[in-house]
């Protein structure tokens, strides 16, 4: 069994793929911060931010719709914001009756709601592009360079490595449970909710013990290769002039977007 579905990296030979991961991380974060700073209803600025995104998409050779297709992930969360449609004071735009409530959408409410959705939608797309064009280990290196504490980056590196091993294990555990989830004629099958929860908990406990013991074996494997508590890594990345140029260009564009948003 092999579970690769977690890999988000998309192998391609493109300009963006070859950029230093630090550049991509920094630009992504600046872009997202900039989106959050744009005032409600800054349509022109949103449009320019979107153009920036399209440009990045083009240079990544993933196809213009690559990120759009995957960007719906944040949408369910928008439910939480739906009440501001009705609760912000302002001119009524539309009103309707839902069950026993009379709901009135106000213009300010609508403006705010749509702005939130756009900000989120733009932000998540660049994040998607980041992981689609950067292999996860390189992303971790980028965070190391950006002075994220080594202990966190190493935990994340281990997490990434064993994510696949352990989710495979979980998948097999759940398959084994499923294959024995049988019914016999004339009986009510399935057991009670509490019993089912207990079985799930047992699986978690089982997985915990195996992971714990695995960490012991890994520790042994590390010891036998000279580990003494300090981790050393080789640094595979070096910033080139192209990387500096792209960073400067991207940040300048994002700055202009901010100015447009405030005109």
């Amino acid at each position: 069994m092999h579970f690769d579905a977690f890999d988000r990296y998309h192998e391609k030979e493109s300009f963006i793929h070859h950029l230093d991961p630090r550049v991509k991380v920094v630009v992504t974060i600046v872009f997202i911060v900039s989106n959050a700073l744009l005032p409600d209803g800054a349509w022109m600025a949103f449009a320019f931010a979107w153009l920036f995104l399209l440009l990045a998409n083009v240079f990544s050779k993933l196809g213009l719709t690559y990120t759009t297709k995957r960007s719906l992930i944040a949408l369910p969360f928008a439910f939480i914001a739906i009440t501001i449609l009705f609760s912000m004071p302002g001119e009524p735009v539309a009103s309707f009756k839902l069950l026993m409530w009379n709901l009135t959408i106000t213009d300010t409410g609508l403006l705010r709601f749509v702005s939130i959705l756009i900000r989120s939608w733009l932000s998540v797309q660049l994040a998607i592009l980041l992981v689609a064009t950067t292999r996860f280990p390189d992303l971790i290196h980028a965070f190391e360079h950006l002075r994220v504490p080594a202990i966190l980056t190493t935990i994340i590196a281990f997490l990434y490595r064993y994510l696949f091993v352990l989710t495979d294990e979980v998948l097999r555990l759940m398959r084994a449970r499923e294959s024995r989830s049988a019914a016999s004629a004339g009986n009510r099958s399935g057991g009670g909710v509490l019993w089912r929860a207990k079985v799930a908990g047992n699986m978690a406990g089982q997985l915990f013990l195996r992971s714990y013991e695995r960490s012991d074996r890994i520790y042994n494997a590390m010891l036998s290769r000279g580990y003494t508590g300090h981790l050393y890594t080789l640094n595979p990345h070096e910033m080139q002039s192209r990387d500096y140029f792209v960073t400067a260009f991207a940040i300048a564009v994002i700055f202009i977007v901010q100015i447009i948003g405030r005109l």
Partner: protein
Amino acid sequence: MPHSHPHTTFSIPKNNEDALCVQVRDLHFSYPDGHMALESVSLKLCDGDKVALVGPNGAGKSTLMLHLNGILGARGEVEIRGQRLTRDNLPAIRAMVGLVFQNPDDQLFSPTVFEDVAFGPLHMGLPEEDVRARVDSALEAVRMSSYKDRLSHHLSVGEKKRIAIATVLSMNPSILILDEPSAGLDPRARRTLINLLRELPITMLVSTHDMRLVQELFPRTIVMDEGRVVADGLTSEILEDEKLLTAHGLEKP
């Protein structure tokens, strides 16, 4: 056995053709990532058959087995005892087809042996005394009765393997499907397992890389490679066909 694909055919032992147990017809399956794991697989198992399923890594053996009790696919090409596998009769099919996974650790998720063996019967909604009776006889069958209250976590691989088989026997399946049962066992545990499998009076499909096990235990062998059945016949004849074996990454025992 009629197959639409060209493959080596041998004479097949025909014991009670009518009491057909498992019938797979033209089964295709791709994993979500697009990988084609099964391509037009057809096979038939009859009551009491003990059949080996061999083939190189990635041949599709495990994938096929996951279809036989509806963990994967279930698009109607699989028939168990005359019933086509559908979403509705899945639970009933699962009571008939017992699947034992390669790694006993996957199968044993409860703290004690008893709880694990009781999972199937409990899920089937049997009354308590029936559950207890089933657990007892299943453990009896694998000769592990004294292990009822032991913690599964502390057992040896060979013991775990036998308990894993018991977890499925307790559901009284009419077909037992074992994925690489002898992997990782030491010779003694392997020998015990072979004797156990020989004794169990039940239809059996067993995938393995252990060609000596095949030779010793199974009158019939199915060879898979790249998602297809490439040979199906008497073990003695297949094991003599060196060309076939080497072509599919196998070795004579």
